[in-house]
């Protein structure tokens, strides 16, 4: 159901003008980030301000690996080790970037296993700041505030939609797997979950690494959409945007993550059109924030209220009946 929604949006987006197609692409990248974020925040109930740090790791690592050798000699003269002489296929680079993001997640996992609530949120935020400071200052690799240049721009509307679908599928499978169910049980009541033998801290660590991997993927895709970017792309604004998408959609359901990303992307696009029509800079941001607040005031648990949307009941019944008949015959 959600997957078909993504495909419909991609089809509609494909018919639009080039600049709108770019916005749709960004929307899909954001959706990928929000979905990866949901895998951790939604399933564990632990808030994270730091996932944009993983996005940054994904974008930078995959970016520096995918820059063509010719531009490396020109733009990145001081690359350490064999980095200066490697050029990976953009797709492979994205995967390596995601692995790097997962590795950073693995470093943070033991700490998060011990923390809960806002302390955990602060720990992830500390990670974001550390990544940001390194990206700003480690000039031989990241070019600091001058920004990365020459990253191949491989991301199109279709590839970004495909990545969003892949991430959606992974999150869906994980959510309904044994681990996902255990995590959700721990989210509702961690003491009871511990009592029935769920190792809450370790599970959270697993969720963090997985979600860092997915968000890192989205980061790599984003980097190859932008082509050039600086550390400030991956900081507080993107953190606010992705968290707002998740919370506005409804933090406790996968549908919420998808819908929140869609609604806020479309909204900011519409607002930008209005802004250029009436020519008042700043209008987009102001109305965007106002509408976000309004949605939260009217629906404090998000648009979906934590429920999943799925097939209409009639169709679902057919499926259930069929599976029941399989059980009885088997």
């Amino acid at each position: 159901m959600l997957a078909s929604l993504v495909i419909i949006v991609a089809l509609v987006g494909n018919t639009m003008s080039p600049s709108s197609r770019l916005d749709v692409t960004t929307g899909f990248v954001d959706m990928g980030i929000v979905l990866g974020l949901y895998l951790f925040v939604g399933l564990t109930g632990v808030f994270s301000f730091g996932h944009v740090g993983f996005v940054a790791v994904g974008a930078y690592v995959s970016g520096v690996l995918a820059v063509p050798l010719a531009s490396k000699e020109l733009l990145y003269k001081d690359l350490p080790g064999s980095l200066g002489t490697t050029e990976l296929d953009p797709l492979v680079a994205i995967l390596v970037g995601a692995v790097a993001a997962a590795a950073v997640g693995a470093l943070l996992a033991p700490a998060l296993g011990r923390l809960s609530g806002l302390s955990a949120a602060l720990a992830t935020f500390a990670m974001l700041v550390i990544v940001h400071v390194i990206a700003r200052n480690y000039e031989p690799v990241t070019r600091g505030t001058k920004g990365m240049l020459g990253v191949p721009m491989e991301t199109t509307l279709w590839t970004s939609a495909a990545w969003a679908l892949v991430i959606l599928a992974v999150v869906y499978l994980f959510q309904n797997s044994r681990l996902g169910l255990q995590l959700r049980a721990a989210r509702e009541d961690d003491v009871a979950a511990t009592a029935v033998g769920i190792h809450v801290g370790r599970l959270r660590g697993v969720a963090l690494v997985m979600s860092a991997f997915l968000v890192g993927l989205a980061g790599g895709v984003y980097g190859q959409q932008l082509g050039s970017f600086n550390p400030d792309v991956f900081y507080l604004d993107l953190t606010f945007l992705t968290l707002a998408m998740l919370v506005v959609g409804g933090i406790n359901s996968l549908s919420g993550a998808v819908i929140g990303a869609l609604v806020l992307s479309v909204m900011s696009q519409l607002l930008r059109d209005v802004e250029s029509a009436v020519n008042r800079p700043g209008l987009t941001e102001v109305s965007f924030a106002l509408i976000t607040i309004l949605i939260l005031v009217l629906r404090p648990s998000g648009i979906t209220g934590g429920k999943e949307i799925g097939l209409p009941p009639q169709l679902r019944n057919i499926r259930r009946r069929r599976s029941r008949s399989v059980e009885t015959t088997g």
Partner: protein
Amino acid sequence: MERAVQLLIDAMSLGALYSLLALGIALLFGIMNLINFAYGELLMIGGYALVLLAATAVPLMLLGTFVVVVIAALLMDRIAFKPVRSADPTTLLITSFALSYLLQNVAIMVFGSLPRTTGAGSGLNHSFDIGGVAISRLDLTVIGVSTVLIAGLVVLIRRTSIGIQMRAAAEDFEMARLLGVNADRVIAVTFAIAGLLAGVAGFFLVARSGSVSPEFGVSAVLIAFIATIVGGLGSLPGAVLAGFSLGIVTVAFQELLPDGLVPYRDAFVFVIVLLTLVMRPQGLLPQRARMARV
């Protein structure tokens, strides 16, 4: 020796400023479970008020600024947070994020995105010499005023009726309401006090930097957020302790790191923050009422 004294004064001044910021956040967090990221925009509003009032006499300028910020804080509570008060903490958090974003962009629309310079408080930038140590008047003022404000807050919270109600509400909000504490009033008073602290802290920040920009409050509120959590999730003494510790750690890294690593100072500070959290997940001075009772 002179260098050590100098650094100590720097650290105390920075720490006192951080404590003031942290107290504003911690007060609200204790009562509403709200990390108010829009607190930074109260600092910004204070900053712009100073810019606009810079031509007037100093007492009038300060008074005007404080009044503006307190009113802004009360409006913030009334318009944005009251409707979502019963929602869960994440919704509150995003509301405050969105509010902060909103106010920053309103400031861009009104004042433009470039920093506005102001001479407000520049009179404090003189320093005088004691035994080879240059002491700036600003540092002394920050330390003095912060101490007085913190002491005043302690008296208010310990001794007065509204203070006792605030503590009761922080301990168990539902119970306090059942016993006749007026929730709206307690929260409004808390916002007002936080607003006053923001006004003072905003003035010091302006006096330090000499300019105001729309993102003026962002880094300050992040510091305050860190101090509030590290201090012990809304524990007021914890917030003060953590604020001072952050100031000291920051100044220490600035001084002790080798030159090549100084740009990475904040990364090191945050590593310390992470380690502190791992070692003391409940914060430096945990509050008993907030511990899990299982």
